[in-house]
């Protein structure tokens, strides 16, 4: 999971970064509205945007407006210090998916992040089923036929992306973008290694990660039982 945080207070940003990273997400941080807009333009591989409204250089709502104006369906969670009804209504009308007033608790933040990324994946509950594979978003774990599977953070991230796009092709570059923050170097070869390891752990029964030569990978859809 890749998350972009747009927050100008460094202490708060640090807290958010550490929290989200500890749940395995790849998190990037910008401190101004202008930078947020640029980052969102550069890539659409983010799963979630956490947007503080009181950003310098470009107001948060303006960033949101531009994002939605480009037709992006990226889930957006708004953080703000003002807690008025007008602001809430305005934020939601401009296209935010959820809203949190500062100060907030860690647990609530994590739950809302989960809910929003779930929605992005098209799932309705905290767990995603893929045949015998059950992926628990909250607990950050996967199980097959009820038995827990030990996966590293990278492997979990990879599985999440493939599950999100189950049945669709995901290129190696996309995988890199999804798994890595700015400044991290993950080579395409490394991706192959991770896929190899993941396959060894989860390819059981109908679960299969197909290789599309020269293009990428795809988690095959489980055919519905006749």
């Amino acid at each position, binding site marked *: 999971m890749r998350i972009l945080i747009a927050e*100008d*207070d*460094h*202490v*708060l940003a*640090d*807290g*958010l970064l*550490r*929290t989200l990273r*500890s749940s395995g997400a790849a998190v990037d941080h910008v*401190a*101004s509205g202008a930078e947020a807009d640029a980052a969102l333009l550069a890539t659409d591989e983010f799963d979630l945007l956490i947007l*503080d409204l*009181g950003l*310098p*250089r470009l107001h948060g709502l303006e960033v949101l407006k531009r994002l939605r104006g480009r037709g992006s369906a990226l889930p957006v969670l708004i*953080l703000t*210090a*003002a807690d008025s009804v007008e602001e809430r209504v305005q934020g939601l009308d401009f296209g935010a998916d959820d809203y949190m*007033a*500062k*100060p*907030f*608790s*860690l*647990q609530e*933040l994590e739950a809302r992040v989960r809910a929003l990324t779930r929605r992005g994946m098209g799932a309705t509950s905290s767990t995603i089923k893929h045949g015998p594979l059950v992926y628990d978003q909250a607990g950050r774990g996967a199980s097959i036929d009820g038995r827990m599977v030990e996966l590293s953070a990278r492997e979990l991230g990879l599985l999440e992306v493939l599950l999100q796009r189950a049945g669709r092709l995901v290129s190696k570059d996309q995988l890199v973008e999804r798994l890595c923050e700015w400044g991290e170097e993950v080579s395409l070869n490394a991706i192959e290694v991770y896929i190899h390891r993941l396959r060894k752990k989860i390819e059981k029964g109908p679960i299969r990660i197909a290789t599309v030569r020269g293009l990428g990978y795809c988690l095959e859809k489980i055919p519905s039982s006749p």
Partner: protein
Amino acid sequence: MKLFQRAQNSLFGEILDSLLAPALLIVLLSIGVTWLVARGIANAPYDRALAHSVRVLAQEAVTAQQQERAFAPAPALMALLRGSEHDQAWYQVVDEAGRHVAGHADLPPPLSDAAAPGTVYITDGLLGGQEVRIAQLRVPLGRPGQPAFNGPPRIVLGEGNAPEPLPATEPPRPDDGAGPAAGKGRALVVQLAETRRRQAVHAGEITTGVLLPQFALLPLAVMLLWIALARGIKPLSVVEERIRERRPDDLSPIDETTVPLEVAPLVSALNVLLGKLADSINTQKRFLADAAHQLKTPLAGLRMQADLALREAADAQALKQSLKQIGRSSIRATHTVNQLLALARAEGGSGALARQPCDMARLTMEVVREAVPRAMDRALDLGYDGAEPGTRGVEVLGNATLLRELIRNLLDNAINYTPSSPGRPGVITAHVLADPFGHVLLLQVEDNGPGIAEAERELVFEPFYRVLGNEADGSGLGLPIVREIAGQHRATITLEDAHPGMQPPGTRVTVRFDTSQETA
């Protein structure tokens, strides 16, 4: 006269009093005038009758003299000559030399200057303790059979009135007929005195009849005045009602068009005051909202870091990191609160500013000295370059505490926003330039940081506006505070690039003080 005034100045009372005093005076005057006129009126007919009577008497006396018999008017005549049955009359006849001829001896002697013959002189006098009215007539002794007078009597009233000389009605005769020895001479002076009791009663009746209604008028006038005034002032209580009925937070202007003309300027001034009050309250509300807003973010950071630290999985390293961040957020929040207080203090002191001569060079050097540790923490080169304390023109009339605050905020901004690296060290310089002849003092803080874009040079003075730089720990209130304090010292602020054309251009903030009133 302060009949109607109460302890506090009352318009009602004042108007009533200033109307009442003259009114009372007028009434008193009218009483006096009425009484005089009444007396005058009453006197006139009586005096005329008396004049006629004395003429009749005089004619008799002359005739008696001419017939050379003693003068003794019949009692019936006397009764006729008396004014009324309430009064008494006495007569006296003397000759030119003053020798008694007939009548009462005790009458006061005739007036010596009542000399015009044929003119009746009427005066007041005393006879036997009673007040009497005395008519005196000088009558020349003419030929027998010749009437002594022609036409109606001419009356002259009072004593001391110099009678006007008249052409004599009878030319003096060169010789007189023979007569008794004591009547020799060419003229007689006849006096007739009567009491005026009847007249006094009459005068009294007139006076009462005219004056009594006037006494009744006075309270009536006062009452009418009172009612008229009360009605006139009523619109004021309408305005009062309208104001009282307002909700406590209603500061909208009072409708000027429906109040009386005289009160409209007062209401207009009140509306101006209400407007200013509303502005002030709105500014405060906005400010409080902004402040609460600004504190929520550091608080969110604190809470988040605390939650993180309390996580079970947190190791020592993570704990340390969290605590460090908690420290930073607390400091930031404290700083924001302090700046808010400083701004409030700066704004609040605008009324009564204790102004003293302040040596700006000395103040600046002190503040720079205090800021050096902070600058060194960030590897910044902070220095002072300017006038020495005590030189001419460095004194500004103002509040030392606030001026110190101003300098400190300027330095803090420079320190917070100027990056410093070994390759490009950050340099901050404070200048104090005094021009005693032009009566100007410049305080400048210059840095080689990223500068402030022209588009933002107005915005940076807005509370909580923060130009993005590096890790800026500012509260966003520094420049607003500087502007507030500068304004109170009647100084102006300008922002510009320190080194235009260079990259980075750096910032120079100049505060310009007017030192023309100083005696430095």
